[in-house]
């Protein structure tokens, strides 16, 4: 640290504002279409790589209660699938997948944070507060913007989603969920938890002989599982939800595709939506 300032926080650690740690500040929020689920491309404005927090479906029941093949599908969750640049250097496309089984009213938003010195090189209009610049005259702190601040200490919580090959045959709804507790209620919170795993599973349910070719045809259900998030109370759930379900008739025997990551890990970082209107 050559330039900047250090302050003690309540944990007696340093909060450092210097040339090596420029601020992430709040840039705005974007509504996820409330269409009962689907995959959506949402264009957000940010210079430099954005940090995207997504709202959580909160305390939404599993619905349906079916325990047939649809049980692994009939569930609610959200996932940020990708954060990709566009031809416009200040615009990114965030692809979000929502499993909602036609439920509406989830009121889900993306909240976007970006680097201060890239997005607001001239600073805020605020006439009060504090600003810091680094040795290159880049603004690294401006109290006139909302800094990225977590809702509570959830970063010490690690969520581990175990590797498990789902058996699609009459699964219980929650068999492939992982849940962790955080020290605050997750109502009206957004998280940034992008770890994910997916499993592609062909499940043979029958076969027949093609009379034209006299070949034996194997019949498969093909199921792709996403990692999606959902919350209730202080509990955050990562769930494997089958969002891609099809049928495949083939003379081959397609194999399951499993991740080599035996367990998928993530730390939970949550913000309070009320601080970022």
């Amino acid at each position: 640290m050559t330039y900047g300032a250090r302050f003690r926080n309540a944990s007696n650690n340093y909060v450092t504002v210097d040339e090596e740690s420029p601020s992430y500040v709040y840039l705005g929020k974007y509504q996820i279409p409330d269409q009962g689920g689907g995959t959506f491309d949402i264009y957000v404005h940010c210079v430099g790589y954005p940090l995207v927090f997504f709202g959580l479906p909160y305390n939404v029941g599993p619905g349906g209660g079916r325990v047939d093949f649809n049980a692994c599908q009939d569930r609610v969750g959200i996932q940020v699938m990708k954060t990709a640049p566009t031809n416009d250097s200040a615009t990114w496309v965030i692809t979000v997948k929502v499993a909602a089984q036609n439920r509406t009213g989830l009121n889900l938003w993306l909240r976007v944070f970006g680097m201060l010195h890239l997005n607001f090189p001239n600073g805020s209009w605020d006439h009060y507060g504090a600003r810091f610049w680094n040795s290159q005259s880049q603004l690294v702190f401006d109290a006139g913007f909302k800094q990225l601040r977590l809702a509570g200490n959830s970063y010490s919580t690690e969520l581990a989603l175990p590797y498990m090959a789902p058996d699609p045959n009459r699964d219980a709804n929650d068999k492939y969920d992982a849940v962790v507790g955080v020290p605050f209620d997750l109502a009206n919170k957004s998280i940034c938890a992008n770890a994910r795993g997916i499993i592609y599973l062909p499940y043979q349910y029958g076969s027949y002989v093609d009379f034209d070719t006299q070949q034996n045809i194997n019949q498969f259900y093909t199921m792709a599982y996403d990692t999606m998030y959902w919350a209730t109370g202080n509990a955050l759930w990562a769930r494997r939800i089958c969002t891609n379900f099809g049928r495949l008739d083939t003379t081959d025997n397609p194999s399951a595709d499993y991740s080599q990551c035996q367990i998928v890990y993530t730390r939970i970082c949550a913000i309070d939506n009320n601080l970022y209107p």
Partner: protein
Amino acid sequence: MSNFGLRTWDGNGNLEFDSTTDLTMFPIYSQAIQGVNVNRSSGLTINFPQWAGREIAAFMQSPYNWGSTDGWCVLSIRISYPNGVPTVLIFLDNANNNYSICDGWLTVMLTGG
């Protein structure tokens, strides 16, 4: 209320920033992670000895999509503190070596803890 640190208010007297709160995040590291550089068994480890004794948060995002067997990818990011040194262990994985292994963008922040 702490007697140390920095607080700022706007012209209406609303508190804008309080360095004594634990949870304001400051980035310390970011890097584009190429999947080809991440061992599919042991992952990729990055540690931050200069921040020993501090707690971090790490975010991983990917520019790639999935939705089919051919395109899916897996991100996993694990944080540990061996000897107090913040350490990030990253896994990126793809269904099949015949397809492009996904890349990611890593951001690491101090949490104040």
